[in-house]
C-alpha cells in the first residue's frame, strides 16, 4: 500500500491550496473594508448610543432633579435626599438651595454633558434622548430642566455662582442643539 507515500505527496499541495485560499480571503477583505468602514460609523450612530451614555444621562437627570424639587426628570429616578436630614429635604423641595449648591451641581452637570458629547459626536440632545427611549414629553421636560438650570445659574451669578461655569453650561447646551436660551 502506498498510502503514506500519497499522503506525503499531497500534503505540500494541500498546504499551497490552503495558503491561496487564505490570501484570497484577505484580499477580498481588503477590497471591501473601505466600503464597510465608510458606512459603519453612521450605521453605528443610528443603531445605538455610545456605552456609558445612559449612566451619564441618569447622573445628569439626578442633578437636574436637585434643582427641580426632587422631581423625576426624563423618566429617570428623582433625587431622594436622606430621610434623616429634614433640613436638606425641605431645601430641595422648596428650591431654597444656595449659590454654592448651584455651583457644585452645575459643575457636575457640565462634566456629564461634556462626556455625553464626546461619546456621541454630532448628535443633538433630542436625538440622544430619543435613542435612549424617552417619550416626547420626557424629552421636553429634560431639556426644559436644563434650560431652567442654566437660567438659574445666570440669575444667581451675583450670589457667587461662577459666571464661567454658567457660561460653560450654556455653550454645552448650544453644542447639544438646545439653541434657545430665552
Amino acid at each position, binding site marked *: 500500500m502506498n498510502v503514506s507515500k500519497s499522503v506525503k505527496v499531497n500534503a505540500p499541495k494541500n498546504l499551497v491550496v490552503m495558503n491561496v485560499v487564505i490570501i484570497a480571503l484577505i484580499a477580498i477583505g481588503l477590497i471591501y473594508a473601505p466600503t464597510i468602514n465608510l458606512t459603519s460609523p453612521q450605521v453605528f450612530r443610528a443603531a445605538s448610543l455610545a456605552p456609558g451614555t445612559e449612566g451619564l444621562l441618569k447622573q445628569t437627570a439626578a442633578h437636574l432633579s436637585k434643582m*427641580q*424639587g*426632587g*422631581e423625576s426628570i426624563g423618566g429617570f429616578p428623582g433625587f431622594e435626599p436622606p430621610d434623616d436630614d429634614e433640613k436638606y*429635604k*425641605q*431645601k*430641595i*423641595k*422648596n*428650591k*431654597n*438651595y*444656595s*449659590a454654592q*449648591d448651584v455651583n457644585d451641581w452645575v459643575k457636575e452637570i457640565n462634566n456629564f454633558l461634556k462626556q455625553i458629547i464626546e461619546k456621541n459626536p454630532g448628535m443633538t440632545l433630542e436625538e440622544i434622548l430619543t435613542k435612549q427611549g424617552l417619550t416626547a*414629553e420626557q424629552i*421636553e*421636560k429634560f431639556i*426644559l430642566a436644563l434650560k*431652567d438650570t442654566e*437660567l*438659574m445659574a*445666570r*440669575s*444667581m*451669578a*451675583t*450670589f*457667587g455662582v461662577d*459666571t464661567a461655569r*454658567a*457660561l460653560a453650561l*450654556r455653550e454645552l447646551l448650544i453644542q447639544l442643539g438646545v439653541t434657545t436660551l*430665552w
Partner: protein
Amino acid sequence: MVKNFGQRSVVRFKSDVLIHISLDEWPTDVPLLNTFTLHEIEDGVIRPFWHIFLEPVETVEMVAGHFQSPLGLEEVIQSCDEALQKAGWNSKETVVAQERWFSFRYTNSTPNKYVDINFRRPDGATTTKIQIRRVIKHPYAPPVEEKEESVEASVEPALEEATK
C-alpha cells in the same frame, strides 16, 4: 422705566449683559399676582433681571424673574392665566403639563414677543415656584460700510477744479 443707573449689579457673559432690576421696574405688561414674592434661596432673594443678547441678526431682550406664592399650584395657574389674558396675552400654548410642573407660552398680536411662564410645586413643597420670562426680539442689520471708491470719486472732481 429702568432707573438708578450705576447702583445695580451688572453681569457680563459673552456677547450678552445681565442687569438686575428692582421689583418696581418689572414690565407692566406682564402682571404679577399680589401673592407673589421673590424666590428666596439660602443666600437671599433672587432679583429679577434684564438680559440683553447681541445676536448676529437680532437683539434679544429678556426680562426674567423667579417668584414664589403660598397659593396652590392650580390656583396660581388659573389666576395668572386670567391676569395675562386681561393684559392682552390672548394666545396660549402649553409646553409642559405634568402633575406638578406646568409651562406655558403666551403671545399677543405683537410679533417676536412672548411670555414664558413655568409653575412648579414639588410634592411636599410649601410654596409654588413661578418663573416668568418676557422676551422681545428686535431685528438687527449690521451697518453697511461705505466703499472707499465712492468717497474718492466724489473728491476727485473737486480736487481737479481746485488745482486748475
